[in-house]
């Protein structure tokens, strides 16, 4: 069994390492300082289990997991995060609250060993990630991956969002990025006074709009500062007008 520890604090990693000594079947392959290293290591090593801290530099543990197609089983470790703990409890994923005892560690490991036989990690991680990414704390950025590189997009840099099959295409000043989420997800997490769903497949950052032109029958086109054009449906136009205070 291959194990990876991802935590930005060296001593926090060392205690897991110490507890792992009692499990010869669990082989610690890599230790990572942050989510970037974590993504790389997970792709290279394809571990069976990772120990993942939540509060880490640049991208947190949840954001890191979102970037991985087939996530491994995860035991979360965190010092204090009420919101995350609530999410763990409601999605039956095991977590360790720092500082944790060896007994507690053993419990988590044996729980994982049990679960490992029956369900795949994705089954319980997907709903967990969905619920934590709706947390208010995550609203100021979106983390995406492009050609193996991780990018953090501040919300204000987003011009508009476009539905593309199972993905959402995020258009920014630096080009566009795909994110494995639904329009509905972005509609719930983004600030409703800044982002308006103007169309079944489009959401626009209203601060980027320079003008709104009529376009065919009941439809309109929002013209952005960047030159982008975003379709506005009849109902979308009503929503847009109320946000803009027209």
């Amino acid at each position: 069994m291959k194990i990876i520890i991802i935590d930005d604090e060296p001593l926090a990693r060392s205690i897991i390492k110490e507890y792992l000594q009692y499990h010869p079947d669990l082989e610690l392959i890599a230790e990572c300082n942050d989510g970037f290293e974590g993504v790389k290591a997970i792709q290279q090593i394809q571990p069976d289990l990772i120990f993942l801290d939540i509060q880490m530099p640049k991208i947190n543990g949840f954001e890191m997991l979102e970037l991985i197609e087939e996530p491994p089983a995860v035991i979360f470790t965190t010092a204090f995060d009420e919101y995350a703990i609530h999410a763990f409890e409601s999605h039956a994923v095991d977590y360790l609250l720092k500082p944790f005892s060896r007994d507690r560690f053993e419990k988590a490991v044996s729980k994982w060993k049990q679960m490992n036989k029956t369900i795949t990690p994705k089954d319980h991680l997907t709903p967990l990630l969905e619920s934590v990414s709706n947390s208010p704390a995550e609203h100021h950025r979106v983390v995406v991956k492009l050609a193996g590189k991780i990018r953090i997009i501040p919300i204000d840099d987003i011009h508009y969002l476009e539905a593309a099959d199972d993905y959402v295409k995020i258009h920014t000043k630096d080009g566009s990025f795909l994110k494995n989420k639904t329009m509905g997800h972005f509609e719930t997490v983004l600030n409703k006074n800044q982002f308006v769903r103007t169309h079944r497949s489009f959401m626009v950052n209203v601060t980027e709009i320079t003008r709104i032109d009529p376009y065919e029958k009941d439809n309109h086109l929002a013209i952005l500062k960047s030159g982008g054009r975003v379709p506005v449906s009849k109902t979308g136009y009503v929503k847009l007008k109320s946000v803009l205070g027209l």
Partner: protein
Amino acid sequence: MARSPISVSKFRNSFFGWWLVWAVLHASLILNYGYSLNNAVIDSLVTNSLLLGACWIISNILRYYLPYSDRYLYVLIISVIFSLVVNALSKFILNLILTDISNTNYLIFLSNAYWLRLGISFLLIGCMAIICVLWYTQEEEQENRQRKNDAEKLSRDAELYKLRQQLQPHFLFNSLNSISALIGSNPSQARKMIHQLSDFLRTTLRKDEEQWVKMEEEMQSLELYLEIEKVRFGHRLSTSIMKDEGSMHMLIPPMLLQPVVENAIKFGLYDTTDAVTIHISVLRENDSLKVTVQNPYDPDTASPRHGTGFGLNSVKRRLYLLFARTDLVETSAKNQVFTTTIKIPNHENYHH
């Protein structure tokens, strides 16, 4: 309950002084009309004792019951009733005492002067009643003011206390986790960290907002905090501290700088993946202290709201509550360095 005016010695002395003058005047007036000294003294003593009693009762009635509206009508009615009672009683008592036949003339004089005596009693009692009303109104207002001040101070103290107490639970639990790890690998380092953490926690538990501390003490607790954080983050965190010796004996509110430094560490460490150096400088500028804290940040990912908001709001609020100024915390972001500047005015100029 408000104090009665008679319980205040200054008022009591002048009241009895006036009463004596008034009693002497009363007696000499009657002497002037040609009645005997005996008559004059007895009349003056009886009437004025009754008036004194009436004043005392009125001051107590108004002390326990003072209506909010129509208080002057109430005073008028009370004064009329009391002057009627005083006059009736004085007439009755004098008639009882002065039974000798030689006093008949005097009793006739008394009965003739009824309306005049009633008027004078009314004026005196009315005066006393109005003085009491004014006195109690003022006492009540003073009490209300005091209560309001106390309540404001209490809530301000509570808020300040809360602002000071905003030590992140993250810090505490992560430090304990580091200690737990060190116990296995490096017990003496673990023990050292327990001592540092205890010393640091002790300084945060200091309750009294009034008790400002020397900058030197604040720096010691700040250095403890930084030492603990360095153990947690290992080589990623280093600090450089520059302090002007002249500033070390100046006074500052306790635990003011810790949240600023905590903010810088969080911002610096969680916004970059590189090693981070936090710069702290403490300078004396004229009569005030100027503390600057700098941390690196990534302008591409830190949104401006994110950058300035963070943990600095509590510091701003606290400085506002202490100094009623909003210009004491300044932040700037330049060349991937985020700078927080805090000015702390001289203790003497503000301390309440």
